[in-house]
């Protein structure tokens, strides 16, 4: 695809996304699209971390949690403005990413997966036990809507635009990274750490920065989530949540941003199929929800077996096939 054609495609996609609230007027349905954006924000970071740098994390729900609780604590308890809260949420989750980056410097593959999984479990325990900050199992309610100075974003449409504006900035930043030197360094670390060292790549710096950036994006997603829903509880930030993010990233394909982005939206919709498909029988809908985890699991298995490069890889192969035919 030519450069102009690609720019045009991105522009069209952006306009289409921006127009969603004009078409979907029901606040309930619109919120599903907002949730898709929240997941997409996390998955953009994971695409960099896993799809480009090759570092697995089974604990990213913890960063979403850190962001959400930070936002809740800053706004409800400390009465700080929302803008301050979201900056604090990004900073704290980024700092958390720094901690999680440390094991990645020594561990690889399964061992890194275990370490990040342990971090996620540890944090979900903290969310339950640190009652003073998190409200324990009951969670925290009464979180105010996001506000920019005197403007309070309380309509479903404005929240949708806010979240997707964050997604847009994240995608631009991520795209700039991947198409320049840092992106090549990430893929070099993924391809061969020996070769990366021999090329003078600072592996420690690449891993740490990518972990921090992906944690920061997850934290922002959590902070936005707190503002959108107004309530946070530990059940939103479990291992299941983390695995959902990994499923989206893997289904999307490594070495791509658009693939994981599309997968994040698709797999978010799976949770709400009953609302999105008009006339879907109640029984079928409840079945789908019961087996949601199985659908995620099956998606991962099928991708790994049939299309290891994910949606993005399948798309590239199809285009290549057409081009050479």
């Amino acid at each position, binding site marked *: 695809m030519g450069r102009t054609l690609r720019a045009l495609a991105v522009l069209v996609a952006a306009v289409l996304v921006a127009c969603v609230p004009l078409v979907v007027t029901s606040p309930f349905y619109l919120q599903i699209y907002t949730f898709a954006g929240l997941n997409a924000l996390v998955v953009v970071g994971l695409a960099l971390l896993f799809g480009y740098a090759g570092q697995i994390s089974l604990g990213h729900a913890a960063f979403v949690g850190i962001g959400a609780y930070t936002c809740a604590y800053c706004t409800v308890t400390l009465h700080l403005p929302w803008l301050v809260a979201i900056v604090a949420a990004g900073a704290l989750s980024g700092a958390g990413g720094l901690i999680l980056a440390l094991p990645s410097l020594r561990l690889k593959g399964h061992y890194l997966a275990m370490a990040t999984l342990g971090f996620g479990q540890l944090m979900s325990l903290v969310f339950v036990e640190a009652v003073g900050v998190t409200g324990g199992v009951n969670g925290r309610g009464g979180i105010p809507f996001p506000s920019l100075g005197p403007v309070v974003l309380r309509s479903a449409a404005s929240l949708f635009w806010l979240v997707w504006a964050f997604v847009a900035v994240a995608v631009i930043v991520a795209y700039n*990274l991947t198409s*320049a030197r840092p992106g090549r360094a990430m*893929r070099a670390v993924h391809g*061969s750490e020996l070769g990366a*060292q*021999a*090329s*003078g790549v*600072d592996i420690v710096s690449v891993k740490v920065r990518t972990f921090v950036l992906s944690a920061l994006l997850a934290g922002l997603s959590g902070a936005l989530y707190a503002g959108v829903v107004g309530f946070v509880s530990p059940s939103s930030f479990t291992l299941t949540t983390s695995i959902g993010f990994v499923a989206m990233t893997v289904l999307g394909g490594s070495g791509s941003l658009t693939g994981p982005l599309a997968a994040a939206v698709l797999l978010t919709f799976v949770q709400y199929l009953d609302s999105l498909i008009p006339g879907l029988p109640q029984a079928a809908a409840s079945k789908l929800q019961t087996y949601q985890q199985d659908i995620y699991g099956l998606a991962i298995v099928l991708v790994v077996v049939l299309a290891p490069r994910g949606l993005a890889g399948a798309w590239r192969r199809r285009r290549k096939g057409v081009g050479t035919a």
Partner: protein
Amino acid sequence: MAAPSQGGGNGVSLLQIREVTKRFGGLTAVDAVSFDVFEGTIKAVIGPNGAGKSTLFNTLTGYDRPEAGSVRCDGRELVGRKPRDTVLIGVARTFQNTQLFDELTAAENVMVGCQAHQRRGFAAAMLRLPSSAREDRDARAEAGRLLRLIGIEEWLDTPAFDLPAGIRRLVEMARALATKPRLLLLDEPAAGLSAGETGELVRTLERVRDGGVTVVVVEHDMGLVMEVSDEIVVLDRGRKIAEGPPRMIQKDPAVIAAYLGEDSDDA
């Protein structure tokens, strides 16, 4: 120690290897090896399988830490440094098992090598600052130049996983050159090349040397070794058994014995 002989170049010793010993458990892979590499020359390190050639490379580039000995490049100690720091000092290498980045194209692989001396980082790239974009353009141009120098520019945009084995070695060599080394260590660059391609490699190595890069090459292809090297070091079971210009090495009884598998002089 014996006075190192001089072979070609300007007679200045760039690399001094002194009494380097590396053990793995009970095995002494490199046993008190010493030699010099002179600036502007090509030196070959040869020896039967298991002689310690690759391990010697690893001790020069921070991948293996020797139990004893010292390695100086241009007066700076290499032992105890991390691999990346040896690159920044000016020592680049390739691997016996090529370590390319399979998902990247040949050109992008070489561009990663260019990063060693680039300054613009994460933030500049995120914001797509002009300085970052300029570095990218420079790296792309440099990658093209190096792949042309080595004669494989037709593979520029081919993903590394699609490259033939011999070409992979040459791309890795281009990537090593992209770090702007003073000393280039090549581990079996001719493996997987056809006879014609090996002849081309000889000329490429001479061009690299004449461009001011000193070369040390581990190689089994004796035709290439005899043709291209100014000096040869022979290792057998971790020890240096001979050193000198190709003509001398060919006639050396210890070398012949080692290659024919007879008992050499070790206890």
